[in-house]
């Protein structure tokens, strides 16, 4: 019955697991493969080329879109991660956990098109209401508050990324022992100092992963961004409009492949760095523990 009693069964299960990962990745890998073919998709001959990548980098519209996407990613991360951190602290401290956790995780369960259209209509109505209010008061100060813009896209994306950042930070916080904060407080540190000097260094990996997660989610998001953005384009909206208008060209394969390369490189680096750091920390901990144990 035991897996280890039958090594072949154990290996078979591993093979299945890797096969599933590979299958999930297959479309992406296939796109990467096509993106280097000078003859594009479906051609009989395969000639390696960088041509399509050169075309992207000389595309002014695309570079502009990249800049907007980056700005969006940075602003959303700067809002989501501190909020998720505060929310996780609140969740740990509060006695009634059901309500906050429901509110913070619910966006996971709301499909992108539904959330996007609900926010779109709400923003438009809020904008109309504020314009009406402004007319009554003789001011135009509120007119731009909820007009579709960078701000509305940011709000939509903060809602989308919040559950992920919250869960990632909460999981790392689970390893932190609250007695350390109590000790710091007993030594005279105030709440902020105890957090900054004692707790934060220990949950930093979680916060950093939450940042990486948020950036990548914003970079990849299409539906909510395209519904809520103002008059600018992001990477994915350009990609999709190109694909829908002219079909998959060599350039769209190269664009998809490039985003995938970057995302995988970022995540790969994070995984490697955390692995190396955790190994180093474990070694250090073992070294410290040794004299006590002997």
């Amino acid at each position, binding site marked *: 019955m035991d897996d280890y009693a039958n090594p072949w069964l154990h290996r078979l299960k591993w093979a299945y697991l890797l096969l599933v990962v590979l299958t999930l990745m297959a479309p992406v890998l296939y796109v990467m493969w096509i993106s280097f073919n000078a003859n594009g998709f479906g051609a009989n001959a395969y000639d390696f080329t960088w041509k399509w990548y050169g075309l992207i980098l000389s595309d002014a519209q695309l570079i502009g879109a990249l800049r907007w996407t980056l700005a969006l990613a940075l602003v959303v991360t700067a809002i989501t991660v501190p909020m998720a951190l505060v929310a996780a602290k609140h969740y740990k401290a509060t006695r009634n956990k059901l309500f906050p956790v429901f509110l913070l995780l619910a966006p996971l369960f709301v499909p992108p098109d*539904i959330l996007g259209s609900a926010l779109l209509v709400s923003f438009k109505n809020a904008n109309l209401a504020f314009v009406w209010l402004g007319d009554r008061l003789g001011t135009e100060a509120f007119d731009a508050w909820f007009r579709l813009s960078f701000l509305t896209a940011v709000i939509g994306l903060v809602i989308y990324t919040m559950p992920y950042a919250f869960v990632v930070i909460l999981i790392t916080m689970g390893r932190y022992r609250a007695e350390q904060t109590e000790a710091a407080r007993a030594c005279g540190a105030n709440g902020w100092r105890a957090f900054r000097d004692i707790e934060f260094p220990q949950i930093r990996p979680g916060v950093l992963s939450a940042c990486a997660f948020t950036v990548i989610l914003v970079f990849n998001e299409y539906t909510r961004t395209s519904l809520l953005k103002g008059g600018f384009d992001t990477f994915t909206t350009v990609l999709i409009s190109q694909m829908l208008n002219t079909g998959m060209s060599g350039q769209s394969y190269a664009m998809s492949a490039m985003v995938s390369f970057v995302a995988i490189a970022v995540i790969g680096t994070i995984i490697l760095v955390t692995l190396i750091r955790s190994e180093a920390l474990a070694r250090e901990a073992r070294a410290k523990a040794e004299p006590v144990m002997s």
Partner: protein
Amino acid sequence: MTAAASETVGGTRPAARPRASASEALGRWAFRLPLIFMLVFFALPMAMTVVFSLFERTMFWMEPGFTLFSYENFFFSARLTNFLESMKYSAIAVAICFVLGFPIAVFVRRSVPQVAQHRVILLFILPFMVSEIIRVFALRPVLQRNGLVNTTLQNLGIIDEPITALLYTHTGVVIGEVLSFLPFIVFSGFLAMEAVPKYIFEVCDDLGVGPWRRFVDVILPLAAPGIFAGSVFIFVNGLGVALLPNILGGAGAVNAGLIATQAITALDFPLAMAVSAIMMATLMALLWIGHRVFDLTRILTPLS
């Protein structure tokens, strides 16, 4: 706002006694800020979909009023049939995801050493890190008539004619759903298996229980809340992600998300809101039933 608030919370400025209590109060509110944000910008708009769905449609927008026209428009047209059809295919996708994905979660929990478990699960985040649109779009060249699957099968001599049912059909949508959402059943299954201690397997072995009974009578009941949450996630997204039927589906492959986006393109905003309200009602009903049957708060035990 957060930065300013936390500065006050931190008491970087030495404050007199009455000021301290004011900053403490401010601090308490700073901790509630994320919840207030979610209430105002998430819960409120979702609740308002019900109100907006009752508004009258105008040429380009909507005006306050009370009419059930949008619901009539939804329930007495092909939209309802499409919606129910997409429910069926979404349920099929959930079942396939469960069969393919849950054993992986069990295997990782049972046979992979504790320290390495999270790393193995991280493998499934990798495809998830690539934009969903790119993954879905990339399925086209894979499933096409002359795509990867057909050419490989033909080269191997397994089929003579390319299979055309793979793309622009319900099958295509289900394939897309499975490939998009499979990692989620692995994640939620992995979390759910936290409720199944490892010694359970040894106990079952000692008692001579076969793998099937062990799965049905022991693992499944213990892991049920997590499995249910993962399944609801996949089911609802199968209903709501317009991209999947839009790119992979053919005639008749229309889900709620696509109905909503099409309504917005047609400037029929009340209809889009009605679809959103119906989706929210479906989600709430599923979560409520799940909570009554499985007590979903059990999933959160490892988190708190």
